[in-house]
Structures are given as structure tokens and as C-alpha cells.
């Protein structure tokens, strides 16, 4: 009963709000993002970021005098649901542009839908290199940094801290764990550091002490790891217990130490470094203004996903204004090579693979909090253009 009442009220409220705006021929942006399930917190940040930027843009007169209207659909982090919802938005709601997909599978699937519908989509979250690499699409853009950029930024920073150092690698034995290590290894070796060994432990290893023998034998100065979740808790605390963490620089993937496991790791997380595309601590006027507005609107700090989703609206605005149109071909042309401002600073959309080039940051755990310790220019971190489809 209350539920029906709520739905009815919100429908009336929605109509009351959107009808006058729609009458002025608004620009419609569809958002297919997880609003339920495991990825809800990410979807929430995406929604908050997009809403904040849309509000600002609309208050300042919209895009080419037209108001921007967001339509949300829950994709449940499931590619097949995402495709259905994207089709609905393209065919029924007639949106001009689509964004919001979180997991890489959804982004790739929705990209194909967009190709069939002749529309453009952008992801603000998905990390998989393939989206703007071997599985690139002329209709898909990525405004956030991909996995390779994070790894390149971290590698560049590590080599600056420890030139010609011995690096040891430890990862979980599955595709992501191995590919993360392989990329990082290639990058640090290219910059002059030396690999002295690697161990791939089974996922969910309980005791990492059995691999400490190889670690001791190799006498590394840097340890690079791609373990995640509970594996990180065990690896780092056991290394700390055995005194192996002393005089060793420990770095890893962006998912190695997260807000979910940092409290369980405790003091053993101190000094852990990783590469990221965004931090609330970026000391620029744009970012300070963004963080303040985001906190005021949502009573929560923005994270990487909120910031990149916020920046996306400005990316679309800049592209439409440059193209003087919302037509797919004209907007695509305008997006290629486009430079625009975001909380992270200036981003450039690379024409060759539709991957945003942006400054990257290295953060380290200091007193239980991630603090920025270095930054790497966008050009240093971007890596090769592997897209061959356009």
C-alpha cells in the first residue's frame, strides 16, 4: 500500500518536474548502472556524480540552451540485463547518449547494442584494458583511466623511488592476477628495474609463509602484488609478523588494499602504494570545488567513480557544443581529440582508441589513510594504442 502510494507520488513528482523541461526539447542521457546488488555502492557514486554535474550544467543554461535530463535504469551488474535496459533507453526513451555501466562485461555488451542502435556510449568506471584495446568500438568512449594506466603510473613512480631495484612479484594464480603482474613487470623492466622472481599462489591461499622462502632467497627491494580481498589481509599481516616487510617497498593493484579490507590489515597496510586515477586530496581549485559541492549534495565523499561520472557530463557538453549537434557522427568526430576539464585536471580523449588521457596519481597508506605521494603525467601513463577497429 505504502509502496504503491510512494510509486504514484514519485511518478507525479517526476512528471511535474520533467514535463516543463522536456517541453523545451531537452537533451536526454540514459544511465544504465547497478542500483541493486553487490555493485550498488559504485552505482550510487555514478548517480551522484552525474546528478551533480547535470544540476550545475542546467543551472548555467544547459547544453546549447537545452536542459539535460537523466533517465536511470538498474542493470544489476548483469550484461544481459544491461543490454535490455540500454535497448529500452535507445528505442523507447530515445536517449541521445548513454553511460553508467560498471562491470566491464556490461560495458562491452552495451557497446555492441550502441553500434546496432547507431548511438554513442561512454563508461566512467570499467577498468578492463580490452574496452579501448582489442575489443574497442567506434561507438564506445572511456573517460576513466584503464588498468594499464594505473599500472604504468605506479611503475614509473616505483622506478623513480628505487632505480635499478630488484623487484619480486606475487599474484593470485588466475587471469587477472597474472595479467596485472605481467603488465607491471614489463613496464618496470622497461624502465630499468630488475625482476628477481615471481610466485603465483592459489587464490584464497591461507598461509603465505610457505612462499617466504623464495622471497627471502630473492632479496628484493620492491614487492609488487596483485592479490585482493582477504588474500591481501593474510599476505601483508603475515609478512609483517615475519619481519619481511622491513626495508621493502610494497606496491600493488588498485584493488589490493581497499576500504573493505584496510581495517582488517591494520598496521601491516602502512606504506602500501598503488596507482589511481583520482583522489579527494588532489590539490587543484577544480577538485576542491567539486569535493565541496559533492559533499554538500550527498553527505558523502566522492570516490574515483563519482569524480569520473561528474567529469563525463562536461565531456559530453564540450563535445555537443563543439559539434553544434547531438547527431552520433558529428558528436563522435567532436569527441575525438577533445580536451576538457575534470576534477582531476585536463583530460584528452585519444582519437585512436577512445581512451581518455589523464594525469595519474600514486597513493600510499599513511596512518591508515591513502595519501598522494606522487603524480605521473597523462602521456607517461597512457601506453600504446592497441585499437585496430577504427
Amino acid at each position: 500500500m505504502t509502496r504503491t502510494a510512494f510509486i504514484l507520488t514519485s511518478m507525479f513528482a517526476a512528471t511535474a518536474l520533467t514535463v516543463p523541461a522536456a517541453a523545451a526539447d531537452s537533451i536526454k542521457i540514459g544511465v544504465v548502472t547497478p542500483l541493486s546488488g553487490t555493485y550498488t555502492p559504485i552505482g550510487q557514486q555514478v548517480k551522484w556524480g552525474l546528478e551533480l554535474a547535470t544540476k550545475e550544467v542546467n543551472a548555467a543554461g544547459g547544453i546549447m540552451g537545452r536542459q539535460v535530463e537523466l533517465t536511470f535504469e538498474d542493470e544489476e551488474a548483469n550484461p544481459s540485463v544491461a543490454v535490455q535496459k540500454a535497448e529500452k533507453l535507445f528505442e523507447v526513451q530515445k536517449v541521445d547518449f548513454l553511460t553508467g555501466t560498471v562491470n566491464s562485461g556490461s560495458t562491452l555488451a552495451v557497446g555492441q547494442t550502441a553500434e546496432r542502435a547507431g548511438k554513442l556510449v561512454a563508461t566512467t568506471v570499467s577498468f578492463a584494458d580490452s574496452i579501448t584495446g582489442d575489443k574497442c568500438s567506434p561507438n564506445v568512449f572511456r573517460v576513466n583511466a584503464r588498468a594499464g594506466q594505473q599500472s604504468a603510473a605506479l611503475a614509473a613512480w616505483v622506478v623513480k623511488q628505487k632505480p635499478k631495484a630488484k623487484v619480486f612479484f606475487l599474484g593470485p594464480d588466475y587471469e587477472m592476477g597474472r595479467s596485472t603482474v605481467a603488465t607491471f613487470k614489463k613496464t618496470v623492466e622497461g624502465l630499468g628495474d630488475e625482476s628477481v622472481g615471481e610466485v603465483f599462489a592459489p587464490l584464497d591461499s591461507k598461509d603465505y609463509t610457505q612462499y617466504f622462502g623464495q622471497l627471502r632467497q630473492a632479496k628484493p627491494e620492491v614487492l609488487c602484488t596483485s592479490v585482493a580481498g582477504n588474500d591481501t589481509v593474510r599476505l601483508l599481516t603475515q609478512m609483517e609478523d615475519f619481519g619481511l616487510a622491513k626495508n621493502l617497498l610494497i606496491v600493488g593493484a588498485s584493488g589490493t588494499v581497499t576500504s573493505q579490507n584496510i581495517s582488517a590489515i591494520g598496521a601491516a597496510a602502512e606504506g602500501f602504494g598503488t596507482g589511481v586515477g583520482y583522489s579527494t586530496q588532489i590539490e587543484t581549485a577544480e577538485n576542491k570545488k567539486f569535493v565541496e559541492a559533492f559533499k554538500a549534495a550527498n553527505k558523502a565523499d566522492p570516490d574515483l567513480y563519482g569524480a569520473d561520472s561528474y567529469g563525463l557530463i562536461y565531456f559530453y557538453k564540450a563535445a555537443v557544443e563543439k559539434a553544434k549537434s547531438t547527431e552520433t557522427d558529428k558528436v563522435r568526430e567532436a569527441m575525438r581529440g577533445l580536451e576538457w576539464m575534470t576534477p582531476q585536471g585536463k583530460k584528452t580523449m585519444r582519437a585512436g582508441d577512445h581512451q581518455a588521457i589523464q594525469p595519474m596519481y600514486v597513493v600510499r597508506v599513511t596512518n591508515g589513510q591513502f595519501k598522494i605521494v606522487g603524480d605521473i603525467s597523462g602521456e607517461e601513463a597512457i601506453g600504446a594504442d592497441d585499437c585496430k577497429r577504427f
Partner: protein
Amino acid sequence: MAGLLEYIQFVLAPQMITGLALGVAVVLVALGLTIIFGLLDVINMAHGEFYAVGAYVALALGASGVSFWLLLVMVPLIMVPVGYAVERGLIQRVFNAPDRHVTTLLLTFGLGLVIEEALKIVFGPNTQRPPTPISGAVEVMGVILPTYRLFLIVIGAAIVAAVAIVVNKTRLGAFVRAAAFDRNMAASLGVPVKQVFAGTFAFGVALAGLAGVLLAPIYSVFPTMGRDFIFLAFTVVIVGGMGSIAGAVVAGLLITQVQVLSSLIVSPVWSDPIVFGIMVLVLVVRPQGLFGRLGHA
């Protein structure tokens, strides 16, 4: 030559000593399992989850200010009625079914899934870790070993010895062994077989809980932690001989040494296949295990 000495001191010796600590952890988990397996002939698939429950109870009580030393006594005592109730309420009901192995295996497997989900709902999916009760590290022959792991080796040995004495030297243990050897004969001689079975199951569950308290600071606490040691523990029970305490100790220490030493030479992903290979070999060559069954010495 100097290189070899260095290898022994800095690589081989620490590896074997950390392997010993891991071995004690495995033996602690396998101990309750082997007693339940050997006596009741019940494959307790929920054993890992009882281990997890012990860890969570310790975590919750520890957070409300109970000291670690008190937990070592309290948690097993809390687990005893739990185990007793499970045996009388669930296992006893299907115990006399013709296909006991299958029904009890499925029953305890289902129970394990229920416990795991319940832990997820009550405590959340994220990993938690109680503080290490004894901090610091000691140097043993130039090898750094965390004090808590050393403590674990010592207390683990003490627990194993205590359990061995209870089973082999006391009147209670004689009841248990008699019931394991021939339950009808034991019953006709006045052994309260049902109570002995339930009590033994409860004892095994209490040991799992105790292992949970002891291992939580090292391996951290999360809902699926029960799966961690369970396959290794089953392997130890099979290789050592179902129900044999000495077998569990020897097999536990042997298998973990094989694991840690082999990981120096081959990729660590091979350590599980090697261990299971040993299990298969034992099953083929000596199916009763290294030390035979409890009550069948």
C-alpha cells in the same frame, strides 16, 4: 659451500619452521575431524564451519572485552552444547539409515552451508581480524619466528597430548574406544553408547572451535573461512588413518612439510595436487592409513 650454508640458514630452515607452525594449525583442525570420523564413522562436512563459528564467537566476545586467555577456555565450552545438540537432533536421526555415509555427509554438508550463510548475515561479508594476542618475534637459530606462531606450536602440542591422554588413558576414553570398536558389545556391557557418541561429537566440535580461536589472529576471520583447512584436514585424516591421533599428527606435519618444501622447487599451485596425490597413493596402497583406525589398534 658458504652458499649452501646460507641457503640452509636463510631459506630451508625458516621454511621448515614456518611449515611446522602451519602443520600444527592443520593438525588442530584435523584432530576433531579424525575423532568424529574414526568413532562415529560420520564424515563431518560441517567441521570447517564449526571452526569458523569458534573464530567468530571469539571475535565477538573479544570485541566486548573478554581476554584471549579466557576465550581459549570459554569458546570450547560454548561449542560443546552446540555439538551435542547437533548430534542428538540431526545426526542421531539418520544414523541408523542403511546408507549412513551418504546421508550424514549430505546432512553435514547442508548444515555447513547454512552456518556459512548465517555467519554472512550476522557478521557481514567483510574480513575481520582479531589483534594478535602475543606480539613480537623471536630468533631461533637466525630464523625470525613470530612469538605467536611459536606459542601455537607449543600449545598445539599440549592440546594434542591432552587429547591423546583422554582418549587412550582414561575411563572415558575407554568407553569411546569400546563404542568405536563394537557398539553393540559396548552397549551390552553398559556403555551409554548414544551419550558417548553425542559427547564425542561435541568434543570434536569443541576442538574445531578451539582451533578457530587459536588460528583467527593468523588467518583472519570471514564467513567462508571454514573451507580453508577442510580439504587439507580430510587429507590428513585419511593419510594418518581415520580416528588415529598419532596418525593425524604425523600426517599433518609430514604433508605440510611436503607442501612448503615443494613450493621452493615447483610452482605453488602444484602443492595441492601433490598433497592430494599423496592421499590417492595412500588410499591405493594402504587404505586404512598410516596408523589404522581408532579402537582397531
